[in-house]
């Protein structure tokens, strides 16, 4: 719903992308609209629980355990983007 955890993830992703020197369009989606939004996304950032509910989608999924740990976000984003 983008007010709590989704909003937090977006803010952390913004900071992490800045550190990595990357630009991206970030969009917060709830589980109901995420599948449709996923059609045009390169990457989905979510929690393990919500990733399971999302099922199989085209983009890569990055799962975050600690939503306030910028280090985790940077490490996992870098790994997902570097992967061929």
């Amino acid at each position, binding site marked *: 719903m983008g007010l709590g*955890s989704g909003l937090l993830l977006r803010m952390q992703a913004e900071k992490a992308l800045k550190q990595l020197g990357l630009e991206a369009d970030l969009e917060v989606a709830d589980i109901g609209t995420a599948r449709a939004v996923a059609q045009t996304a390169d990457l989905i950032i979510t929690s393990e*629980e*919500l990733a399971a509910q999302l099922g199989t989608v085209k983009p890569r999924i990055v799962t975050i*355990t600690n*939503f306030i740990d910028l280090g985790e976000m940077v490490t996992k984003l870098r790994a997902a983007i570097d992967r061929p």
Partner: protein
Amino acid sequence: MEGPSDGAPLTALLSRRAIRIGAAAADWRAAVRASGEALVASGATDAAYTDEMIRTVEEIGPYIVIAPGIALAHARPSPSVRHAGMSLVTLADPVEFGHKSNDPVRLVIGLAAPDADGHVSALAMLADFLSDDGRRQQLLAATDAMTVHALVAGFEAGGLSDRPRQAADQGKER
């Protein structure tokens, strides 16, 4: 709109009346209820919002445990929200929410938002505050609400230089 704007500082949304120290909670419902009651006490919500917060966890699961030991409880914007507000509850005993990695919960943040972005910068600041182990330990060790509010206010006063960037980020969302 009445009330705090997008850029409302954390201390404007987290009033002293919305801070509870050492709340007794036997399970996750009681823990979320305590954070909802603290929102009611601060005037941010009606009691119905507390039930909506609990229902949200029942529907979507324990994903609200956003970090080790920390739950962020909220529901959708609704008529039970009078104005944007946050509550902060430390629990007397840790509580299991059923989260794979981040249980047990020691700290519940309650969030009430009448719209999607009135609380953006406050939430960002709270996340920054809690991301530091030392600050989190200080908060959990506090024995009264005054101390917690002073910790948050002190951090906010020191972190004001970060505000313009956040304000620019909010502009993008519309």
